[in-house]
Structures are given as structure tokens and as C-alpha cells.
């Protein structure tokens, strides 16, 4: 791995094609912000990149403890990359806890930058270091750069006249300055950003800027090795970074605009889905209504009410909330109203690992309702793809008058990647007409279906002459009146199923890439997209023949899925669960799939996947 650097000679300048840096410190040390600033600069500089925050568990742990460590990892390069990187080649550790929690991930021989001031005895004890790792030789395998960040910062920000406490809080900027120098990043954007952010507190701004510059100067005077990572050649256009949750919120707003329908979100806060509620509640000028409901059942019920009223009803949640929405989801399905249920998957079962990622809600999404209750399932596969997934889910919901489940997960939700901002006018027009007049002679039949889509008409309150009642009891085909007729129930069951199945005609076919002669197909869905891609790339680099395909629609699957799978001798399915997609593929296509399962609350490492796949190709 090119990021595996040999100990460099002083003053030397090296070129790298990619670097993985992890900033780690106490929850209070501002590591997320530090990483964010560095990412921003690298992005504008033109590198491709992917980032992954690693928050501590929901509740703040006491300062200086392992549980309290907060980290941010960025992978940037001169070519397109797919993941935030397996192992950092550079680790910035602001205290002993951060070192202890993250050292195991640092590549051997990697660069380790530590805040030596933080390594006094009490801090060491707190995390069970009997001896000081900076002096006991246990770090010999790495290039260690010790910087007394705290004291240097305090020194540097004197003029600003901020309190000592305030001063020390700027040490993350000092660390950023050092790294900026090492990777030849300009300071200006960050300085501008700081001055804007602390416009009201010029002292604070001044202090942070001073710390930033001090770090940069230190790098220069201490003659740390400087590296260069050239810009990547990305498709031309305007870019921004975006997280999965932000992309979902923007996608929903875009869908609302392009459907010419107002957006209504009913949601109950839950990690890691809450940020979608937070983001959407900020855009009231788009006519977006957000209600923080009393619970998940109310949240989806409210969305159903809004959909009946002609709005795009949306509800967002995570695992436990998905459980609670099951019954109301069945109602939406029986009422045949458009609804988008967004599930940001997290570690289960039960409360599980709320802040960690997993893909274990797929079969629940497929079958987690009583009765025969099929609905479309769309899965995002990268942070930016969440934008597409939101629009696609809305398109299907409106066109087929059905609830749709959009699956994302904790990794996509919080991870960020550069996103080429689409031209608004290029976005699809997904508007559908409301019913405006009787469709059965004088009468209006709410369940008289469209021949092609099998969708029922959407007649909203306020439309004279179309007054009608809908409910969860079985309905007579056409009239929609309550019906206990056995044959009608069978027919309606078939119709509800046929309506969803027919969607396979209306979605992109499954694409695969790789060597024509490849015997092995690596099939994935959701957030494993990047890791699978990177692993396959490495296998090809090793001269192995392998193909890969990624499902973006889980129900129905693209029409050509069976045909694609049948081209290969072996279908390998890596999943962050115990093999849920495998179950579906096996049942539908009778293929003896090979599963690669990891249920650790963490995304696959491309390297691990590469190793696992090596045994198979």
C-alpha cells in the first residue's frame, strides 16, 4: 500500500497517491470539527475523498476515558476512491485515551502525532497505561512526532487575551496547522472560516487563527516531512460534500419540488435518523411541514393522514421505530396511499448498538407486516446516493400509490463524500395527477385501478363530488366498499402483489462490471458498495478475474437480475448481517450463494474483503 510509508529523511518531500488520516481526541477536543475543516480544504484542493466520523456511544462518557474518545477519519487521494480507508497511515492522538483506542488501527510504520502535554500520570492511569507509551518504547514500530500542543497553544494565543481554558480549547487548530503543513494545505480557507464563525467573538477567532498558524510554523521549523497528494481528476462540475442524512433531506425536498406537492414529515427522534428531522425542519420556506410526534406509531400515522390530504407523507426512523411502524405501514398499504418510510439501520437486535451501523433490517422490511403485504424497497449505497434514493422512493410511491421503504444505515447517514451537484432542471418530473372527476359513471370508485400501473386514483379532500371512505378492512375490487367475499379477497391479494411486481419494468436493470470471463460475481446492496468496489479493484490489480453488481432496488429486484446472476459460476454476497440478501436470492433464483457476513457495527474493510474474496476467485 502506497500509504505504507518508510521512515522518511528530514526535509524530504514525498508524493503520495492517497493518505488516510485519523484525528482522535476527547469528545471535548473538537476532533469532528478539525477533521471537517481539513476535509473541506482537501476537497476544494481537488482531491477525491471519503470521511467517516466515529462518535462515542450516545451518552457522554467522562473526559479522558476510552468511552469518551471521538474520532474522525479522512481518506483523500489523487484518484477516485470508494471508502474512508481501512487503516489510517496517520494518527493524531490528543490524549492517552485516544492513543489507546486507535493505535491498533494505525498501519505499522505509520505516522503518529501526539499531544505530549496530555500524557501526565493521571491521564495515563485513567486508561490503564502503567508506563508512559511515549517513553517505554512500545511505539518503536511507528514514526512518532511528539508535540506539546497544549502549552504551545497557550503560548501562541497569548495576545488574543482569552482565558487559559479558552486558549487550551484551540489546540485542535494547532494540530490542524501541523497537518496542513505536512500535506501542503493552505490555511486561508480555514482562517476565513474561523473569522466568519467567531465574528461575534473576535478574541476566540484570533486565538484559533494564532494556534493554526503556530502549528503550521512548527511543522516548517521542525522540518517535518512534507507530503503532496495531487488533485484527483473528477468529472467536471460543481461539488460539495454531503452526508447520507443530509442527502436524504435534500432529496425529499427536491422530490417535493418536482412532484409539485408539499412535503410532510412525521418523525420521532432516534439515532442515527434524527438528523433528517433536524435538517428538514430548517426548510419551512419550501413548505416542508415537520412534526415531532409523540412516538413512531403516531409519526407514521400522521404521515398517512397527510398523504390522504394530498401531501407527500414521509416518516423517518431506525430499527426499533421500524418495528413500531409495522401495523400502520400495513394500513398505508391497504389504503394504497403514497408514503415513504426511511429506515436508517443500526446495530440490533433490540436497542443493540444505537450508534453503530448494520444492514440487518432487510428481511424485516420485506416481511415485517402481518398478512400478504408486499411493498417496494429502495436502498441507498453511498452518502450522495441517498439523494437519488429519496427521489426514486418518492417517484415509486406516487406513481404506484404505495408505501415505499428506503433503507440506509448509520455509516451512510454520517459518512460524507464529495457530491457533484446535479442540475435542478435535469431532475425527473415525478408529478402525478389527482383524481378530479367521477370514474364510474356518476360515481367515484376509489379502487378502480389504472390498467398499466394498477395504481388506484388519488382523490383528495377538497375535491367536490369525489367524497369517499377508505379503510383497513378488505375492499371490493373497484368500488372499495367493505367486502368479505372470499374470491374478492383472493383477487385483491393478487392485485396488490401484481402492482408491486410490475415495478420491475420501471426501474434500471441490474448493471455489473468486471471481466467478461470472470466466474465469480460479488453481489451487494446498500453501504457495502464502496468496500466491495475497492476490494474488487484490488483483486483485479492482483490479476484476478472478478465481477461485481450492486442492487439498488431490493423489491422488486430489476427484471434482469436472474439473467445477470446466471452468467456466473459463483455468486458471493458480502453483507453486514447474517445473510439476508442471500436468503432472498436463494429463494428467488435457487442459486447456492456464498455469504460473507460481518456483524460488528462497522463497515467492511476493503482489505479484509479482499482477503476473503481471494479464497474464492
Amino acid at each position, binding site marked *: 500500500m502506497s500509504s505504507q510509508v518508510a521512515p522518511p529523511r528530514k526535509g524530504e518531500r514525498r508524493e503520495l497517491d492517497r493518505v488516510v488520516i485519523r484525528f482522535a481526541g476527547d469528545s471535548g477536543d473538537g476532533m469532528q470539527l478539525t477533521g471537517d475543516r481539513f476535509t473541506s480544504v482537501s476537497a476544494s484542493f481537488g482531491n477525491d475523498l471519503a470521511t467517516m466520523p466515529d462518535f462515542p456511544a450516545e451518552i457522554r462518557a467522562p473526559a479522558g476515558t476510552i468511552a469518551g474518545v471521538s474520532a474522525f477519519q479522512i481518506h483523500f487521494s489523487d484518484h477516485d476512491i470508494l471508502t474512508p480507508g481501512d487503516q489510517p497511515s496517520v494518527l493524531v492522538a490528543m490524549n492517552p485515551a485516544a492513543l489507546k483506542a486507535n493505535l491498533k488501527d494505525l498501519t505499522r510504520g505509520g505516522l503518529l502525532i501526539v499531544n505530549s502535554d496530555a500524557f501526565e500520570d493521571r491521564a495515563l492511569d485513567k486508561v490503564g497505561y502503567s508506563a508512559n507509551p511515549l517513553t517505554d518504547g512500545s511505539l518503536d514500530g511507528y514514526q512518532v512526532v511528539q508535540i506539546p500542543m497544549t502549552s504551545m497553544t497557550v503560548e501562541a494565543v497569548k495576545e488574543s487575551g482569552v482565558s487559559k481554558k479558552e486558549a487550551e480549547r484551540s489546540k485542535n487548530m494547532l494540530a490542524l496547522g501541523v497537518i496542513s503543513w505536512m500535506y501542503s494545505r493552505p490555511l486561508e480557507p480555514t482562517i476565513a472560516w474561523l473569522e466568519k464563525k467567531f465574528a461575534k467573538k473576535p478574541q476566540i477567532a484570533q486565538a484559533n487563527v494564532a494556534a493554526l498558524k503556530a502549528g503550521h510554523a512548527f511543522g516548517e521549523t521542525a522540518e517535518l516531512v512534507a507530503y503532496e497528494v495531487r488533485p484527483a481528476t473528477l468529472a467536471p462540475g*460543481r461539488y*460539495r460534500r454531503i452526508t447520507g442524512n443530509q442527502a436524504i433531506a435534500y432529496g425529499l425536498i427536491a422530490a417535493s419540488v418536482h412532484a409539485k406537492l408539499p412535503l410532510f414529515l412525521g418523525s420521532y427522534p432516534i439515532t442515527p435518523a434524527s438528523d433528517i428531522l433536524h435538517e428538514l425542519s430548517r426548510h419551512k420556506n419550501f413548505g416542508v411541514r415537520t412534526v415531532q410526534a409523540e412516538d413512531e406509531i403516531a409519526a407514521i400515522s400522521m404521515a398517512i393522514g397527510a398523504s390522504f390530504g394530498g401531501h407527500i407523507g414521509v416518516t423517518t426512523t431506525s430499527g426499533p421505530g421500524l418495528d413500531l411502524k409495522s401495523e400502520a405501514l400495513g394500513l398505508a398499504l391497504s389504503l394504497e396511499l403514497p408514503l415513504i418510510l426511511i429506515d436508517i439501520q443500526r446495530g440490533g437486535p433490540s436497542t443493540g448498538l444505537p450508534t453503530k451501523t448494520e444492514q440487518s433490517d432487510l428481511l424485516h422490511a420485506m416481511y415485517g407486516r402481518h398478512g400478504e403485504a408486499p411493498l417496494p424497497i429502495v436502498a441507498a449505497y453511498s452518502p450522495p446516493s441517498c439523494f437519488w434514493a429519496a427521489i426514486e422512493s418518492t417517484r415509486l410511491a406516487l406513481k404506484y400509490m404505495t408505501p415505499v421503504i428506503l433503507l440506509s444505515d448509520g455509516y451512510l447517514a454520517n459518512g460524507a463524500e464529495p457530491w457533484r451537484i446535479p442540475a435542478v432542471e435535469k431532475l425527473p418530473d415525478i408529478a402525478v395527477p389527482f383524481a378530479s372527476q367521477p370514474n364510474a359513471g356518476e360515481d367515484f370508485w376509489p379502487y378502480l385501478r389504472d390498467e398499466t400501473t394498477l395504481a388506484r386514483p388519488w382523490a383528495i*379532500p377538497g375535491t367536490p363530488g369525489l367524497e369517499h371512505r377508505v379503510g383497513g378492512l378488505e375492499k371490493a375490487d373497484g368500488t372499495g366498499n367493505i367486502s368479505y367475499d372470499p374470491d374478492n379477497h383472493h383477487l385483491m391479494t393478487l392485485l396488490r402483489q401484481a402492482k408491486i411486481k410490475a415495478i420491475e419494468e420501471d426501474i434500471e436493470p441490474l448493471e455489473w462490471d468486471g471481466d467478461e470471463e470472470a466466474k465469480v460475481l460479488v453481489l451487494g446492496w446498500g453501504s457495502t458498495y464502496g468496500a466491495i468496489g475497492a476490494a474488487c479493484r484490488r483483486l483485479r490489480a492482483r490479476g484476478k478475474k472478478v465481477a461485481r453488481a450492486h442492487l439498488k432496488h431490493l423489491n422488486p429486484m430489476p427484471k434482469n437480475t436472474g439473467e445477470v446472476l446466471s452468467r456466473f459460476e459463483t455468486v458471493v454476497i458480502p453483507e453486514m448481517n447474517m445473510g439476508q440478501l442471500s436468503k432472498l436470492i436463494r429463494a428467488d433464483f435457487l442459486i447456492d450463494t456464498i455469504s460473507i457476513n460481518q456483524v460488528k457495527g462497522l463497515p467492511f474493510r476493503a482489505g479484509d474483503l479482499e482477503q476473503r474474496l481471494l479464497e474464492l476467485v
Partner: protein
Amino acid sequence: MTEQPTERGITEASGGVATLTRSDFVSDQEVRWCPGCGDYAILAAVQGVMPELGIPREKIVFVSGIGCSSRFPYYMNTYGIHGIHGRAPAIATGLATARPDLQVWVVTGDGDALSIGGNHFIHALRRNVNLKILMFNNQIYGLTKGQYSPTSEKGKITKSTPFGSLEHPFNPISVALGAEASFVARTLDVERKHLPEVLRRAAAHRGSAFVEIYQNCNIFNDGAFLALTSKEGRSQNRIYLEHGKPIRFGPNDEKGLRMTGEGRIEIVDVASAGEGSLLVHDEHREDPALAFALSRVADGPTGPTPLGIFRDVQRPAYGDGMEDQLRRAAEQQGPGDLSKLLTSGDTWEVTV
């Protein structure tokens, strides 16, 4: 698209209110309640009041949960949703918040509203969502053929309590007041005048209007309200609350209610106590304490029981507040501009 949805996605209604009659609100569905069920009288009363409201049919929606009472929407020739058990207030909250131009009625039962639906019920009241909530209280689960409900008296023998229920019942009026309800009333299925009048008042209230309607289930809980419906009881036990009037009742208004210095309401003989000492009803009292005290005059419909409007105060309706925020946001930030949104924050250009 034959008809363009307006900004708010609502095809404009004809608006013009042709004068309607009761029959305009009768749907074509066969009514399916047991012969003799109190629900029939309530249906008739609601259908009778509708034309007076001057609201076009298409602007009215009835939302229900599950239960005998919840079949109600099928019989109203308006828009309607027969929802799932207990969730009507939540479904209606979404609809009323999305569409403040509609008049949304919730029809529910004592089990639907207070058992499985209790949480949505109290939150709808707290938020003061613009809903008219009619709770048919027959003190039993009718549709599932006769189990006790949260309003059934303690000791009640039912299919699920062969040795008698152990549960102290809710007083729905007290529950509503404890949940910050802005309009709270009680009436009776057999009240030919009082019931429609209370419905009118509820319809006129902007915000959550809760109406408890004692309803006889002649199959599984017949006679539950005899203390108020028997010839004897009717005159002895119905205490009509009238705003601004001293509270009197009895065949010849000979009894009255008085508030003691310890904040206890007691029944007094008007002659001896003197009319002046009687409690004067005040529907509009900000503080709900008086209404609450009145709700405790009768723990259940077994003796003298207040009927009428316990409380009617103004508080911004949830949906209206929402409209307000949308309008102000649009004014302050300008109407949403999608490409401006997508390009907000740090962006950079990549050129070849």
C-alpha cells in the same frame, strides 16, 4: 394533469356552499350496528348538524379507529378514513396539520381512545390540533363482543373478568383536562336537543374539541346509563352546565353545586343554602381547575352527573401555528429555491 394542484398541493374546492340537507350527508352504505344501538342516534344527530355548519361536504373528513363506533365514517357522505385501532387522533393530526382548510372529525370509542389510543389522544389535546373528537363511551368493548374497557366500573363482570374487573376507571373528562384540552364537553346519545347543541359548539371551536358521548350498547352493556336515562334518573341526575349561570339541577332545580373554601364542590339544597352561594359556571376560565372539580362531581354516570361544556378556552391551534411558521419562513428567507439549497455551504468547481 387535468387539474394543477396549487402551491399547497390542494385542488381548490368549489368553496361555494350550496345549501345542503341532512340527506346529503347520508352515504350509500348499509348501516351495520345492532338494532337498538345508541350509535344510530348519534349518527342521526351528526348528519342533522352537518348542513348547518355551512361547510361543503368535500371539506369535511371523518377519521376513526377500530370499534363499532369507528364504523361511523362509512355512513357519512364526506371524505373519511377508517383507520387502525387507537390511531385516529394521530392520523387526523397529520391530515389537519397538512390541510388546515379542512374540518376534521375523529370518531372513537372508549377503548379506541382511552385504551390503545390513550397516548395519541392526550397528545392531540395537548397540541390543540384542530380536531373535533367524538368519543362514544359505552363503557365496554363492543366490536370484540364484550370485554371491560378503561371506563368500565370496577368489579365489572365481563368475558375477560369473570371474577370482576380490578381496575379503577378513567374519568374521560378529567383525563382530557389533565392533558390540557381547550374544549371539553359531555352529552348523551338520547339527548335529542343537547347532543346537537354540543356538536355545534364543538364544530365552532378552533383547536381540539373533545366530546364524551355516553352511548348505550344494548347488547353487551345495556343500561349502563340508566341513572341518567330512566324516567326517574333523567330529572334527578342530569346536571346541565350553562355558562354564567348558577349550577342547579333536580326536578324543580331544587339542588345546586357549591364550592367550599377548601376547593371541594358539594351538592346543596338551594332553598337552605341560598341561590347566591351557588357555583356559577364559567366555561371560559383560563385555569382548568374549576372544570376539573366539576368533572369529579360524578366519578361515573351513577348519580348526579354534569352534562354540557366543562371548558371552552382559546389557544392557538397547532396547524395554524405551523402555517404561520411556513409563511414567515417564506417571507424571511424567500420561497424555497432548490438549486440555491443544493449549492449551499462549501462547494468547489472541478474543471478539466
